[in-house]
């Protein structure tokens, strides 16, 4: 075997081992790498009232209530489970019913008390006219946005 073939085999094996090690580490730390939990995962885990965590999902249609004083309450859904969220503060521009949201806070008495709310944007990009046309023709594949002004 020539020296460069030896080096090639060595480098190939080393990269393979490295990739395996990385895959093992990442799968072992999966719980701390995920940015948020879905309502279904939360229902399974039942975290204590002092654990700070993030939840994410879609803002349920018609669930946003603003009783005043910068307080907002809404429900986050993943289409299987729903969780009620209460938040006091300024909402990001993209916060809308039917759109993705990530909230950080604590789960207390079944209500998620959020102290930070981030909007999650999806991967769809299109001009407003196209979005309207898709909705009118009934070909809208995304979430419904009719409540949006």
């Amino acid at each position, binding site marked *: 075997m020539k020296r*460069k073939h030896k*080096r*090639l085999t060595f*480098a190939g094996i*080393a*990269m393979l081992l*490295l*990739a395996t090690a*990385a895959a093992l580490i*990442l799968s072992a730390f*999966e719980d701390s*790498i*995920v*940015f*948020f*939990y*879905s309502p279904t995962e939360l229902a399974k885990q039942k975290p204590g009232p002092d654990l700070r965590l993030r939840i*994410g999902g879609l803002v349920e249609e018609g669930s946003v209530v603003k009783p005043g004083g910068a307080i907002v309450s809404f429900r986050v859904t993943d289409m299987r489970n729903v969780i009620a969220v209460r938040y006091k503060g*300024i*909402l*990001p*521009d*993209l*916060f*809308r019913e039917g*759109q993705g949201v*990530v909230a950080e806070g604590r789960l207390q008495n079944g209500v998620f008390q959020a102290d*930070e*709310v*981030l*909007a*999650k*944007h*999806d*991967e*769809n*990009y*299109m*001009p*407003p*006219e*196209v*979005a*309207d046309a898709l909705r009118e023709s009934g070909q809208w594949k995304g979430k419904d946005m009719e409540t949006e002004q």
Partner: protein
Amino acid sequence: MLHRFANPTRFLRLAAAMQPWMAALTGVMLAFGLYFGLFDSPGDYQQGESVRIMYVHVPSAWMALLCYTALAGSCAVSLIWKHPLADVAARATAPIGAWFTFLALVTGSLWGKPMWGTWWVWDARLTSVLILFFLYLGYMALDNAFDDPGRGARASSILALVGFVNVPIIKFSVDWWNTLHQPASVIKMGGSAIHPSMLMPLLLMGVGFTSYYFWVLLIRIRGEICANKVRSLRLRQVHEQPSADDLSEEAS
């Protein structure tokens, strides 16, 4: 075939001929891309005009990954086949890739504040791209940390190859884990999720950024080869001088 063009002298001749063409392609593509992206494309139905940040952010992020792949490839060739041009190409690629990564991070942050409501979060995509930036910086620091450039190239090449595991992690981070960052739009199952009127300027910018990389890469490789020549000439001078001094001393 590959060895034919990997000869530095032949490469220099080819690079000199290609350089103006790459410059022209870059200029034309960026001019069209920026014009369509900033003036002649619609705003987004959700993001409004902020969507235009995408025309710089997304190609920068593509280039950050492409440059790192090129860097790791060159380093592998340099370690395994010991080709001198591979070392030069790796050293020339690293700062370009680092700047693209920086640009992707900064434009992403500028988009994140109005859209997500935050400049930065530690989700899998953002964190892995920050690690990519540090890998570039680490590669460059290690490359220059040795007096003997050969040893520096060897150590930094190993670092670059080890860091290559990060590239697929960045690409698939949005699919493997819950992230705040949105999943891929252009290449996805069931066709692109970007309307053609927005995809066109994005692709123009992508081609422009790629040809910019090759243009600057050619300039940097040519500069790097010249610098190597100067270094070896100086070394020869230094080695010859003492003997000349000895001779003159003996003569007087």
